[in-house]
């Protein structure tokens, strides 16, 4: 029982990070109908932003303080939001009217560009780096159950961010515009919605969440490297499809379920080696039996 609870806690922590990244995929898919392949790399850049910002912040705030940690997180989110908007502006906006496949291939190109530029020895270098402790770390034991302060932080931060996202999407003018564009782009444009700024904002929002995911991931797993976003990005995308792509609560739910399934599968001796393949197997099964995802609605294609 204890082991079950432990795996559940670990799975939830991983799943919460998947959820944060998956939200970016699903929101971009909602407004643009394409998979932003470079999203996993924004997650990586978020972790690296934290790595480089932390010494800067520590100059005027004590190291390992909650205030400093929050500041690093917010600054990294801001930085990555700008970066996400820049990527959209430079690479995707000129292709807005082109076939979706063209945009997809461009996104793969952007992703490769970020990965290989960051691996270059004058940028970050390919070697893994140790992520600094942003907040004081503690471990609590409840019987046999081990809960680290970092895991707790993942839950709290993700919940706060999800709440904030819900507020932005449901209660603000920009959120309403986002929903309108996602529902019908042309009609939204006719109603006076500025499509470009909505898409730019969506990229910024998604990238900020990915950056938060990157920092939370780095705090939990302590080591970061330029290719860390590849697998995480793919799995978070799968989580988004699993929950129903374009559906915001679905992405969060899909991320958490995927995290739990993966962690439990990793605990089964014969299956643990196949951990990386499980997510893809789930994806294929999901697309076969319920292509719209857990919370998505099946759409009729009109000719």
């Amino acid at each position, binding site marked *: 029982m204890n082991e079950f609870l432990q795996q559940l806690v670990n799975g939830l922590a991983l799943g919460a990070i998947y959820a944060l990244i998956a939200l970016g995929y699903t929101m971009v898919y909602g407004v643009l109908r*394409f*998979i932003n392949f470079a999203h996993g790399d924004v997650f990586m850049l978020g972790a690296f932003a934290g790595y480089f910002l932390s010494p800067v912040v520590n100059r005027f705030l004590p190291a390992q303080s909650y205030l400093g940690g929050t500041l690093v997180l917010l600054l990294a989110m801001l930085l990555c939001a700008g970066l996400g908007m820049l990527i959209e502006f430079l*690479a995707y906006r*000129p*292709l807005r009217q*082109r*076939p*979706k*496949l*063209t*945009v*997809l*291939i*461009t996104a*793969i*190109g*952007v*992703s*490769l*560009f970020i990965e*290989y*530029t960051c691996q*270059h*020895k004058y940028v970050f270098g390919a070697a893994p780096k140790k992520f600094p402790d942003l907040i004081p770390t503690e471990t609590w034991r409840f019987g046999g159950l081990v809960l680290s302060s970092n895991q707790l932080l993942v839950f709290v931060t993700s919940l706060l961010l999800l709440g904030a996202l819900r507020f932005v999407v449901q209660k603000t003018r920009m959120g309403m515009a986002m929903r309108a564009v996602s529902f019908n782009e042309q009609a939204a444009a006719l109603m006076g919605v500025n499509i470009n700024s909505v898409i730019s904002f969506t990229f910024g929002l998604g990238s900020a969440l990915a950056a938060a995911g990157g920092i939370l991931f780095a705090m939990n797993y302590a080591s970061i490297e330029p290719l860390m976003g*590849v697998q995480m990005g*793919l799995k978070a*995308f*799968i989580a988004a*499809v699993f929950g129903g792509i374009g559906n915001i609560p679905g992405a969060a739910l899909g991320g958490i379920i995927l995290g739990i399934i993966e962690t439990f599968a990793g605990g089964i001796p014969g299956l643990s*080696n*196949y951990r*990386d*393949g499980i*997510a*893809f*197997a789930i*994806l*294929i099964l999901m*697309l*076969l039996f319920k*292509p719209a995802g857990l919370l998505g609605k099946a759409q009729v294609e009109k*000719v």
Partner: protein
Amino acid sequence: MQSRTKRTCLFAIVLAVGVSLCSHWFNRYYLGVAIDIAINIILAVSLNLINGHTGQFSLGHAGFMAVGGYTAAKFSLLVQPHLPPWLQPVVFILGLALGGALAALAGLAVGVPTLRLRGDYLAIVTLGFGEIIRVILQNTDFFGAATGLTGIPNWTSFGWAWSLAAVTVFVIASLVNSTYGRGFIAVHDDEVAAGASGINPVRYKVTAFCIGSFFAGIAGGLYAHHKSFLSPTGFDFMKSIDIVVMVILGGMGRTAGVIVAAILLTILPELLRGFADYRMIIYSLLIIGLMLARPQGLFAFGKAAAK
């Protein structure tokens, strides 16, 4: 048209075998690059049938190549010690055919369930399939697990590689230009309209997947017997992207352009070896620039570019 392609194909085979007989005169390095080019031509032209002619965006071609490569290599390793040396070409051909057949089966297994998906969804599923193959190979001791297969006999000669490349180009070009093959292009242009005109899009898609995977498997077998070494990491997502870029650079659905692109993209990395740090950065910028400036492909002349 048909007889001319047949003659060109035969001529290419004779030329390849002829050159191969004098291969000991050539520098081993250049010979190796020439064989790489032939293998990449097979891969690119076969992927072009799926991505270009039929319009089904697949990101898992390296997975099919891995199936063929591992099958052929394992076959050679198991059978070769028990047979006299003069049977070696037979073993080689059988291994390649077996690898191709298994890759085609894998193509069938992927094609049938994923037909309902289009565009980017299909891309992700095929990508996932490639990753699953890699994970399975990495954990199967029979296939050498993470260390890979070593000591594969070095049988791929210039003649074998280029003859099979010629056969691949011939088969796929004739297929697409045949009456039956027009169906692939119809499915690519408009699936609904093709279905309404009595063409079964599902059948065409699966056929394209099977044939494309078959040749990818053959290329995998050639690759295995060329490098004498196989490891799961050689068949990752990047390898699939490499092949996709060849198809895009050459122009989707343009066989001649794709061949030129395969040659260029094999030679280019060799020339850029001195700038290894910048090679992949240049490569990714090439993809982005190409999509922004010339999405129909660098070598897409003549026929009005596909819409």
